[in-house]
């Protein structure tokens, strides 16, 4: 199993310093490739209004259980995976801010590209998180992922 973080939710947007801290911490000698995915809040147009903020909510305990399951699943598929770090925001994240950070460290590049893509896809399919998109006029809509 790769080295993995214990909790996967934070009550704020992802800060760029967090990304650099994780990169700095992944100096173990068997890692030769880092792949990083950052999910950013888009100001989509909905009924001629722009999305200004997404408010994320989660079933916290189940998020932790399911994250561990998907990391196990991806680890079983990619034997070169050495390190995984996943963090998702809860609460308000403004358009242009980052809500999801997935880091993968592997021995070589190919598995790192594929593992990070698999993790992001599984997070969208299997992790119990919901989003309320607030628009310019302060109304909101609940949206779901397109799979």
């Amino acid at each position, binding site marked *: 199993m790769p080295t993995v973080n214990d909790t996967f939710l934070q009550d704020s947007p992802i800060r760029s310093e967090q990304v650099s801290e994780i990169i700095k911490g992944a100096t173990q000698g068997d890692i030769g490739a880092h792949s990083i995915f950052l*999910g950013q809040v888009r100001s989509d147009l909905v009924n001629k209004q722009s999305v200004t903020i997404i408010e*994320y*909510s*989660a*079933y916290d*305990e*189940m998020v932790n*259980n399911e994250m561990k399951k998907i990391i196990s699943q991806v680890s079983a598929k990619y034997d070169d995976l050495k390190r995984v770090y996943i963090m*998702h925001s809860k609460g308000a994240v403004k358009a242009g801010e980052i*809500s*999801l950070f997935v880091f993968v460290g592997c021995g070589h590049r190919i598995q790192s590209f594929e593992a990070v893509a698999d993790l*992001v896809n599984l*997070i*969208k*399919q*299997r*992790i*119990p*998180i*919901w*989003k309320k998109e607030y628009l310019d006029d302060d109304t909101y809509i*609940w*949206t*779901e*992922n397109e799979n």
Partner: protein
Amino acid sequence: MKINVLFFGILTDITGTSSMEIEDIENIRLLKSWLWKNYPKTKDMDFQIALNKNIIEGKAELNDGDEVALLPPFAGG
């Protein structure tokens, strides 16, 4: 016998709460009937059910103290 029912996403708007205790509901089928009767809007909705934090499909019996979560389609990322 009591179960704790948790609501997420759009279901919190429909029910006006994120959790409630319900008495004498013995299985998932009866819980769905109870939900549809009390919140008719949920009849047309797509949601999964987690029993004690594990997603279940189809029938399941409920026991005192169970936590049942009603999960609309996920939207993480």
